[in-house]
């Protein structure tokens, strides 16, 4: 059998890689993709805990379901925002949209 820690470590690696992507990338689309990776890591965590530790309530599974749902909505909205950004600034790079400061 696979020990729980294997899944959790995988989730941690996945999350960290997503985090790296969010922090290092410039393009909004790439950042979005990295966010998806992080969401995947979270989902893995949720399901892992549900099937290993609380099979009676399996809240984690339900949550993973919601995560996927919300992720879908989020991607739709985020892409719409990226589109607007691109129309206004002719770029999809987030570090070029910096007029909302002092």
């Amino acid at each position, binding site marked *: 059998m*696979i*020990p729980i820690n294997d899944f959790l470590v995988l989730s941690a690696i996945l999350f960290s*890689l997503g985090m790296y992507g969010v*922090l*290092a990338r410039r393009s909004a689309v790439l950042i*979005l993709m990295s966010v998806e*990776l992080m969401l995947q890591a979270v989902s*893995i965590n949720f399901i892992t805990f549900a099937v290993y530790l609380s099979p009676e309530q399996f809240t984690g599974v339900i949550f993973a379901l919601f995560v996927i749902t919300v*992720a879908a909505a989020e991607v739709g909205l985020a892409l719409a925002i990226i589109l607007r950004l691109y129309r206004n600034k002719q770029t999809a*790079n987030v570090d070029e949209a910096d007029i909302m400061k002092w």
Partner: protein
Amino acid sequence: MTYEEGIFYLVAAITVIGALGVVLARNIVHSALFLILSLLAVAGIFILLAAEFLAIVQVLIYGGAVTILILFAMMLTRVRETPAAVDGPQRPVAALAAAAFMATSILAVVSTEWPGNTEKINVISLDQIGRALFTTWAVPFEIASLVLIVALVGAIVLARGEEGE
């Protein structure tokens, strides 16, 4: 090492390679393709966790809808033609932060004593999930549908652009 473990490590390796590809690729289209790979591998992980329903949902929504959407966005914004560097100036710090986070969370995982049986995967049937969704989780479920509607409307309003544009 049981065969289950062997399969797990294989799938996990594909997931990680996909993720690495997403965050490291110089070409943005390659990134998108790596993302698909990674997402599909995660569906495999879900199967290993005995959550077949979620795996299917994952393939349908992520592997299908989300990646398609992302590819559309790429096309519409013509990110490929952007000549500037794909990575920002804070890449080294980002790498450091990510590494630190990874170390921290792995340390946390390893050092924690989990309550309950950490060896056995309990199968949660589709039947159970369905009942739970429509009884205990009925209200959040409805709200989730509301969220989707709102997101849909919002996305349309945002993407449509203003009059005369």
